[in-house]
């Protein structure tokens, strides 16, 4: 019986301390979490202004840039690799033909390859490899442009 009473008193004491701590907690200041494990998604490589597309070229299908590199052979060019989403290869091909021609680039500048064996409902559907004129870093002072997470710039493959 005495043991039960002691436990009960202890329980109430802990509860009381908890209430006081909670009530006073705003006075002790605010903690500062760093969100280290959830960094923001880097800006899209073609929208961050670092290595823009040739004038007049834009893509109207959903895509994500996978890599962007300057290649020396067979002649110096920029090799930009995207993946396209939610469209079939024929649609993307048609859209690219129009978009490339609007920018004065040949249709052969883009090679569309659907992913092999993805199910019908797949979000990611295929790859586009673009052969484009080289472009220099347009904003060398911007740290984003030195961040491969955003630019997807890689050494020549």
């Amino acid at each position, binding site marked *: 019986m005495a043991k039960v009473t002691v436990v009960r008193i202890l329980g109430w004491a802990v509860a009381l301390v*908890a209430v006081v*701590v*909670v*009530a006073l*907690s*705003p006075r*002790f*200041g*605010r*903690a*500062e*979490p*760093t*969100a*280290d*494990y*959830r960094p923001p*998604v*880097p800006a*899209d490589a073609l929208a961050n202004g670092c290595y823009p597309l040739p004038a007049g070229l834009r893509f109207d299908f*959903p*895509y*994500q840039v*996978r890599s962007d590199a300057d290649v020396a052979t067979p002649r110096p060019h920029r090799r930009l690799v995207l*993946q396209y*989403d*939610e469209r079939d290869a024929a649609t993307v091909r048609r859209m690219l033909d129009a978009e490339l021609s609007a920018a004065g680039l040949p249709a052969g500048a883009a090679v569309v390859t659907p*992913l092999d*064996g*993805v*199910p019908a409902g*797949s*979000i*990611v559907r295929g*790859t586009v490899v673009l052969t484009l004129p080289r472009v220099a870093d347009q904003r060398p002072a911007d740290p984003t442009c030195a961040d*491969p*997470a955003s630019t*997807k710039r*890689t050494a020549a493959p």
Partner: protein
Amino acid sequence: MTAVLEKESVAAVSRPRRSRADLLLLVLVASHLVLAWVMWTRVQERTPIGDEKYYLDAARALSNLVRDLVSLHAPHGAELRDNVVGNGWFMPGTPLLMTPLLLVLPHADIGQVRLYVSVVTTLLLIAALLDVRRVLGPWYAVVVAVIPGLIPMWVLFGATMYGDMPAGILLVLLVTRLVAVVRGLAAGHVPTLRQGALLGLVAVGSLYVRGSTMPLLAGMAAAALLAVLWLLRGRTRRGERRRALGALALSAVVFVALLLPWSIGASHALGGRVVTTTSVPLGLGNTFGDPTLMCYGPCDPDSTMWFGPVRYSREVARATGHSEVEVQGQMASYALRGLTPHRYADQVVTDFENYLREPAGYAEVLHGPHDAAVGQLTFITRVTGWLFWPVILGGVAVLLLVTRRSYDAQLLSIGLKLFLGGLLVQPFVHVAGSRYWPTAAPAAGLGLALVLGLAARARGRAGERGDRPASRVLTWVQGLLTAGVALVAAALALLNA
């Protein structure tokens, strides 16, 4: 004075083993405290490593949530989303345990955080030992106080924010509570609502601390339901069966009610359905899939095998409006194409090797910046290595034991099989490492105690404690579970041959 002496000697005569065991238990707990202190001094300056960064950030954000609520401010949604839900990889169990500290000391330094965590895990261990002593007997508590209570690496994990070690302690409590309930049922006592609520609370607590306990919790819930249906079959007098099912239903209600705030919050933050964590698809893809296909091709080279795929899934989600959780599921399926049973089995065996190899593997990274204590590292590695053998022995015993000696032993044998078997699902779905055994180690300790107790009883040394006679059904259940383990092991061996 004479009266006191007489009283003590009577107690000593009537319960000689018990008091000797209790004295030993006291000495062992004291040794644990000393060891815990030494281990804390080792890591008191160690900045958070790996996942600890998440746990600390989540605790900080949760403490801010409490501040906002008591001062009637709107919660800081973005802060909670980025720090508590994060990538959805972990449930915020240890952050919830750490929140009280961060409420008082919002800028607590790492030494204070680790000291607080050590105290909490030690208190949890003592509570579990007391319950083991109450339900199973003092000698069981003595064995658990050594295995894993005195394994240096296990104690060192108690000073970290990883949930693996405290989850194992909570699972011990779950097993003792379940054994107590089923033993009561067999003796005709219907579990009370309070017992039911406590079961649900301990179960959801262990899930919050370590999401990987989900399979074993499902197994234990099924076992508890079957026990009630079987033991109270045909008993309709005063609605015993109904009341027992009511207690069980309450445990389920408590479990779901406490899980829901997380599930809803995480699903809302990540834009897709999340029940416990998001880690299974990425875990499967990274463990068994082709890494060069994880992002429908290789992932970004500047990131890790965990962060790279998440970043990619968020980029796809941004481009398409789908949720990153859905994208991750599709990525994993794609990377797993062409996985053969042979390759799967081969990887599972590798996972088990990694699970068991180098039990003190984390001791090297868990040290302070001024740590010159090479001797300490040697001590942790060596002693953990020695004491790991009894852990393996106890684990094997748990998985293979089929006892017909007593009802209590049978119940514990089944409870531990579910405990350990459920945890060992992990290497089948996720890369394993030397961080995971601390969750399973208490099951091995209890298994060791069970085998030692049965051996002592066979030699007629330990007294019968008014135990119920063994049950044929429970022998069969043990046999089935053991056969299941043997089948899986045989299949793995065949596929690896």
